[in-house]
Each structure stands twice: as C-alpha cells, then as structure tokens.
C-alpha cells in the first residue's frame, strides 16, 4: 500500500486511471452488449417463411413490405439470391448509416439467416442464384488469361493490384484482398451498388473463374522486390522517398558535419 500511496501524485497515475476506465467500460459493454441475432422462432415452417420473417423485421422499412422498393431503398424484385447473399453476407446490408455507399462490416445475420433471406427474395422473382462450390472452383482456370480479363474489366475501378479505388462523390471500389471467390462471383453477377453487371453471356463463367483465379493470385502473391508499400504505385513510393529515405540521407549529412566529441 505504501508503494501506491507514495506514488499517488505521480503524473502517470492519471494516465493509468484513464486506461483502466476505458478498458473497464469497453470490456463491460462488450460483455453485456453481445448482440445476439434473433433466434429462429419455433413456428417457422420453411426457409422461405423464415426469410420472410427476417425480411419484414429487418429490411422492409427501406425496401418495402413486398420488396418493391421505397424512397429509401431500391426494389429487390429480381435481384436474386446471389445479391442477398453478397450484400447481407458481407455485412453491407443492413445499412449502418446513410452515406456515399454501403460499407462492408461485421454481418448482422448468421449463415442460416442469410440463406433464409436469400431464399425469400429469390421466391419473389427470378434472379441470379447463389453460386455453387463448383461455380467458384478456379484451380483449372488460366490465371494469365484471368489477368488479361481483370485488367480489361476490373482494374479501372479496383486498381491493377486489387487495392481498390475512388469513385465519384465519395464512393469507392473496394479493396479485393479479403474477398472470397463466392463474393467475387456474386459481385460480378449482381453488380452491387455502382459496380456494373457482368452477365454470363458477355463474360462466361469460365472467364469469371479465370478472373477469380487471378485475384486469388494477387491475394497470395509475394512481393519479389521487398516491402511492397501498399502496391499503390508511385504515390506511396514517393511518400517513402520523401520521409524515410531523405531522413536517412540528411541524417547522414548532418552526422558528417557534426564535430566529433
């Protein structure tokens, strides 16, 4: 006790108290505010009904009671299960806050619920189905051809290394480094937000698989030349130059001029 009492006026005490308080409040909130998604009610019969129940609870305020769309959200008729799986599965929907575009975040629904929602929307009007495991297989795809297609169709928004890019008015094309093959395929088929729709007629599944193979390659690629500075091109290279490199060179110059002790 004497140890603590002797240091009660130590300036670090304030910092320590602050940190303790932050952790206590944060930890406490995390412990008690464990957001549990709603349990499936015992009375739902099929997946579609469950999906309808979830939809009415969580989506209808913006997308309409019959998914016909309102002023706040577009119609979901015809978007297909794939679109629902993509948007809800990546956490973009439900929208956290109005903004330039939906932000991918922690999904609010678990896998079963996402599947239920997707089934419900699919039941309302025909649309792209959720890709099967077979659809997203890319082991036999030509990664080089995938690169050509990626650079023709994707790089202008998502950047040559898939790091993402800016669109107008604060929108953006996301970074692809965490995207799963299923998400990539769904995005290409459904054209989420600003992304165009790449139909199988003009970009056959084989080509889409090649693109997925290429993006997968980008995700796992090594950086042959060393630290890769974000793969954003000359901007980050110039930043590194004017900070680290010049700091080192000027430090050396100053060191040379300083009189030895």
């Amino acid at each position, binding site marked *: 006790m004497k140890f603590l009492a002797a240091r009660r006026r130590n300036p670090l005490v304030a910092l320590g108290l602050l940190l303790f308080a932050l952790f206590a409040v944060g930890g406490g909130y995390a412990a008690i505010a464990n957001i549990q998604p709603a349990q499936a009610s015992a009375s739902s019969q099929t997946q579609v009904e469950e999906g309808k129940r979830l939809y009415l609870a969580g989506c209808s305020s913006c997308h309409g009671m019959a998914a016909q769309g309102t002023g706040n959200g577009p119609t979901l008729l015809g978007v297909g299960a794939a679109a629902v799986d993509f948007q809800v599965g990546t956490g973009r929907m439900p929208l956290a806050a109005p903004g330039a575009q939906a932000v991918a975040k922690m999904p609010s629904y678990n896998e079963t619920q996402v599947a239920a929602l997707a089934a419900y929307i699919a039941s309302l009007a025909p649309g792209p189905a959720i890709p099967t495991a077979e659809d997203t297989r890319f082991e036999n795809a030509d990664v080089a051809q995938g690169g050509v297609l990626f650079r023709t169709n994707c790089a*202008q928004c998502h950047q040559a290394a898939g790091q993402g890019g800016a669109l*107008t008015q604060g929108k953006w094309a996301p970074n692809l480094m965490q995207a799963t093959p299923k998400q990539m395929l769904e995005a290409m088929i459904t054209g989420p937000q*600003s992304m165009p*729709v790449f139909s199988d*007629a003009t970009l056959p599944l084989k080509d889409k698989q090649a693109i997925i193979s290429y993006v997968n390659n980008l995700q796992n690629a090594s*950086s042959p*030349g060393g630290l890769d500075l974000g793969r954003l091109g000359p901007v980050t290279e110039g930043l590194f130059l004017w900070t680290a490199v010049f700091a080192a060179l000027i430090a050396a110059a100053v060191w040379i001029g300083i009189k030895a002790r």
Partner: protein
Amino acid sequence: MTDLTPHGNTPAKLGYSPVADVPHVLRVSDTDPAAAKRAERQIASMFLLSMFLVVVFIVAFCTIDKDTNVYIPVFGEVGFLTIVLGFTSGVSILLIGTGAIQWAKKLMPDVEVVQMRHEMTSPQDATAEAAANYERGKDESGFARYKIIRRTLIGAMALFPVPLIFLLRDLWSSPASGTLTPDEILSHTLWKKGERIVVDETYQPIRPEDLPIGGLVSAVPANLMEVQEVDGNLNARGKAAIILVRMEPQEIVAQQGDGWDYQGIVAYSKICTHVGCPIALYEHRTHHLLCPCHQSTFDLANAGAVIFGPAARNMPQLPIGVDSEGYLVAMDDFNQPIGPSFWERG
C-alpha cells in the same frame, strides 16, 4: 595558433593554408591515446565487416534460388535473393562510407583552415591584352571590312542546320495512310455501317439480350484482330475501343443522334476526350463514366456530357443497331474525332 596537437596542427608555411582564427575545442581522440586507438579499431572493423559482407553476397548469389520467397515480419512474403543481395551489398558499401567518415571525424585534424578568395574579374592587364588581341584579330581577318564575305558566311551558317530539320520529317513516313494529314487520320476509326461489335479479348459477338440492365461490356470491332495482324500495332484498337452499357430506355435523357441506342443499349468511345486515357469506370446507378487519370466524369444517359473534371468535350457516341442475325452492329463511324482535342478539330 602555433602549438601543435598530437594529430598535427600544421603551421602556415609552404602553401599549407593557415589555421583559421576561430574557436577550436580538442576532441577526445586528440588528447587521449586510448580513445584514438579505439577509434582506429572501430574504423578498421567497419572495413572488415564490409569485406565479410561481400563474401556473404557471393555465397548468396551462388546458392539462393531466384524463385525462393521468404517471410519476414513487417516485410511480408518477399523474394529471398533480392533481399539478401540488397542487404549485403548495401551495408557493405555503407560501411566503407561510415569508416571513411569516422576516420575523418575522429583521427584526421579537425582544425579549420582558411584560404583567401580572389576576385573573379581578371586583372586589368589581362583584359587589356585580350582586348588588344581581339582588335588585332578582327583587323587581320578583315571580318568587318569584307561586307559581302561576312554576309554570305552568315547566310551559309544559318542554312547549315536546315537539312537536319528536313531529315526529321520522315520520323513519320505515312505509306499506309497515303496522303492523309494527321487530323484526317485522327478523325476516322475502324467502325463503319454493319461492323459487328464483339467483346474485347474474347471477340465474341453480342446480342442485345446478352446485356442486362446495368451491364457494361468493353468492346471492339469484329475485324480488329485481323487488322492488328496486318498493321502489326495497336493503333486501330486505340481508336476503336468502345464500351456498351445498358439502361432502361426511359432513363436516356439525350443522345448525340436520334435512335443511336438500341433498346436502351448505348455505345460510347472508350477514350477520354481530355488527354486520351481509356475510360471504363462506369457507375451504373448514376450512369456516370469516370476517367481515373484526371477525374473527368461523363453522363452516358445525357449524350455523354461532361459533368465534372477537365474534359471539355462530350464522349463521342457510336450509333448502333442489330444486323439480320440479331447481333449488335455499328450503324456508322463516330461523327467526330474520338479522343483528345486538336487544333484542326473545328
């Protein structure tokens, strides 16, 4: 100051610069022989380490496979050979430098010496002699006296570089285009009435039903592949590249010509009218086409009008229709030159 320090405070004599009249503090290595010895050892070990690292470089070069990767914290997965070669050679060379500088800082005299400057202007007699010699030379050459010789010489020298300028004319010799001028060549592309539109890279023809609402396709003329074979270059591609987008027909506010769309499918050039970057960044909900180079934005539902950015001209539109087999075709070439503006554009 005339007293000598252990490392030589050279007096002014025989061309050695005199010591400057500035305050001077002795270094530890000046007064303490043990410190000087330590400095000597430090410098020698730097050079020694440098030599050792060269050996490591050689070993690495000969043994590490060029395809090997290695995981290093912070760096991630990187090429092993490059990192090792760079590190060893870099530090090795760096050590030579630090050794030399430590040598200068710790062991060489750090007494500042002074040297006088001399005015840059030459002494009077030199200037006078130069002037006199010039006058003599001018007289003897007769350059001022022989007017005709002078003038014809100037004429000949002036015309001397002219052949070079003419030789540069054939930096562009234009056999393929005949007697067309650059602006005429720029004003035409491969597109013509009936030319089929095919998907870029796969050359697959397109039916209207292949393109969904909100869809985007980068497209080229069907004959591009053989034209490229014949030409042996990418010039035709650079002018003929287009994008097809589909929107609801009622969303089209304006076009560059009546009925240039086909059931809501519109075709626009892919080359920005600012300075020529290809554009395929299409936001299908807003129908905006965005150029990544300088952020020019075009509204494809409104005749390709510029709505933001430094481009001054609309994106040129290609009139399209379908042929007898139901594939999309161009109905004509563009009605204006595509790409960046130029003087003769009008």
